[in-house]
């Protein structure tokens, strides 16, 4: 259905104004990205609604837009479970971390750990967690970008990765957090408009939501159909469903590029305001994924499954083509491209800040470097991370499994970053050994359980694929408790002076905002 060979010039026509706008914003932002606060945190001058849009822009990846629509198209209701988990996760972020991070942190999640724990090992632990999550997520997005742009625009996979990576680096290196934030806001607005137009279009053609369900069910297909209006098709093992649900709802609260966004607002009030803005936008978006997914089932039918590609990723663009022809397909393609650009920019920024702020400035230079040096290092780090991610994406090629790597990123975030952060902020006794044990155990157990999971091994459909007979596809239900357990054991089995005393300070700061970082003067 989608022309794969020929270059889609209509789509390129829509790319140009979008990309042009983001570049103008980047150059406008570049003079505000020269200080550390400007580069990492946009001078802490982002308002709550702006940050809400930017969180939505950071969070709603191509996996959300194309991936969930595709899963709903192929599997029906089970795809929608992702939408719900991704949204409910923001309650975890709001109640447990958002304001505390804003009050007690500066640029990275390591700041919060380093506050009360021994600084250098705490920063190493946090940097490991941040970089592991960012690396898997970033490579997944790059591969996704390459596959999609290749399919939709008709340019070569490697070239598509290079173009995506190139823009990402321009935004981050020239414009820092200011440019990245505005790229995310622009993308969020485009994505919301795109999915709204498409959903309304589907509804007008079908008549009503009930009619949409009825006709989707009628288009179920033959006896071997995977589609159902009820659960159990994509996730046939109940324990896997539960495990996935846990990783989704706790993982978001450990994603460094999302948590970093709370350092860009002036205070805790704006932090919680921005979470609620994000909840409204992200919730509306995920609600509409069912209209796109079921709409695709109605208009593409069971015979469109093959054309929708792996995981149904092309279901949404194919639906756009059926609804509005080449022009609407081109618009939706351009929106998908903007979606990927914004997410990868946010990820690179969070990874480069972990390297420059935590590893370079605090660990290697022991805080003796100048602010100017730190910003230069952050830009060099962004370049390095970007090049490595592009190289892995191109070498691994489209064979790298995108959903596997996104799952891994969420599993590590939930099992390593989330326990350490939550306990550092709330548990008086927590100490450095506990943090290191937790981050390492969470990261390694998530990686190990994913490597032995049946998804990765040949014969993926049968549980016999795993070499040790491991049957879970999603590691969360094991690795998250392991992460917490390691935090606990590491803490109670060792004694450390000072961690408990500096907890008084961290607690007062994080609960009240006393002494919190102020917005830069304009």
């Amino acid at each position, binding site marked *: 259905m989608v022309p794969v060979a020929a270059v889609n010039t209509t789509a390129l026509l829509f790319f140009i104004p979008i990309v042009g706008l983001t570049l103008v914003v980047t150059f406008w932002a570049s003079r505000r990205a020269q200080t550390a606060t400007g580069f990492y945190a946009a001078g802490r001058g982002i308002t709550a609604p702006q940050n809400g849009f930017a969180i939505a822009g950071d969070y709603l990846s191509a996996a959300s837009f194309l991936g969930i629509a595709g899963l709903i198209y192929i599997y029906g209701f089970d795809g929608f479970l992702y939408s719900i*988990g991704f949204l409910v996760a923001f309650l975890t972020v709001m109640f447990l971390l958002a304001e505390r991070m804003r009050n007690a942190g500066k640029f990275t999640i390591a700041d919060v750990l380093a506050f009360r724990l021994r600084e250098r090992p705490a920063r190493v632990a946090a940097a490991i967690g941040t970089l592991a999550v960012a690396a898997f997520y970033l490579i997944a997005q790059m591969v996704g970008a390459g596959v999609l742009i290749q399919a939709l625009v008709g340019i070569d996979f490697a070239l598509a990765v290079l173009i995506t990576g190139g823009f990402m680096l321009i935004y981050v290196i020239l414009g820092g957090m200011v440019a990245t934030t505005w790229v995310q806001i622009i993308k969020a607005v485009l994505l919301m408009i795109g999915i709204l137009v498409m959903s309304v279009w589907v509804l007008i053609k079908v008549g009503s939501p009930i009619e949409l*369900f009825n006709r989707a069910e009628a288009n179920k297909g033959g006896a071997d159909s995977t589609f159902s209006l009820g659960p159990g098709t994509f*996730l046939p093992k109940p324990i896997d469903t539960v495990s996935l649900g846990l990783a989704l709802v706790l993982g978001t609260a450990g994603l460094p590029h999302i948590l970093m966004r709370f350092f860009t607002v002036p205070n805790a009030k704006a932090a919680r305001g921005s979470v609620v803005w994000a909840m409204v936008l992200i919730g509306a978006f995920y609600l509409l994924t069912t209209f796109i997914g079921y709409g695709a089932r109605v208009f593409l039918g069971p015979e469109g499954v093959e054309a929708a590609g792996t995981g149904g990723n092309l279901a949404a663009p194919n639906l756009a083509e059926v609804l509005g022809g080449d022009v609407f397909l081109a618009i939706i393609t351009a929106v998908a491209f903007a979606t990927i650009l914004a997410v990868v920019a946010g990820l690179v920024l969070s990874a480069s800040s972990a390297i420059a702020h935590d590893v370079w400035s605090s660990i290697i230079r022991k805080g003796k470097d100048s602010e100017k040096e730190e910003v230069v290092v952050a830009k060099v780090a962004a370049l390095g991370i970007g090049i490595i991610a592009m190289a892995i994406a191109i070498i691994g090629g489209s064979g790298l499994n995108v959903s596997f790597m996104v799952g891994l990123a969420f599993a590590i975030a939930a099992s390593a970053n989330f326990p350490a952060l939550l306990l550092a902020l709330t548990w008086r006794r927590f100490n450095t050994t506990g943090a290191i044990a937790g981050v390492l155990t969470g990261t390694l157990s998530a990686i190990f359980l994913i490597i032995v999971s049946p998804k990765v091994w040949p014969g993926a459909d049968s549980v016999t694929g795993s070499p040790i007979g491991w049957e879970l596809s999603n590691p969360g239900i094991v690795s998250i408790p392991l992460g917490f357990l390691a935090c606990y054991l590491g803490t109670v089995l060792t004694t450390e002076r000072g961690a408990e005393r*500096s907890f008084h300070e961290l607690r007062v700061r994080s609960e009240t905002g006393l002494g919190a970082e102020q917005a830069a003067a304009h």
Partner: protein
Amino acid sequence: MDASSNTLQEHEIVDWEAVERSPEFQALVSRKRRFVLGATIFFLVYFMAFILLCGYEPGFMGESVYEGLTVGYVLALTQFIMVWSLGFWYLRKADREFEPLEQKVIEEALAMTRGTSGAARTDAGDARVGTGSVR
């Protein structure tokens, strides 16, 4: 920014332990905890119950409520409503109830710090203070 009145200055030394012990801080934390802990337990239970139903009772979740509208979809919609309601409820509660309490703690702490400036220095660990101290 009116930097001096209600924000901590670089040179000011706060006795964090005393602030933590103060009745104002205890009042803030217990009020906040009551709401946040309750809400967190509620949404985790509500979400996990939904996930457990999806996992273990797919037949029930796939039953029709009205034509193609399934039990699962209706319960899914209640998850959206739950997220938005809790979000707005918390905003209201935080603005009206928690923030005034936070301001009281900050005022008390600054009064304590400025009234006994210098004397509050208890040891080196507590001296690590100021707007740029995280680094």
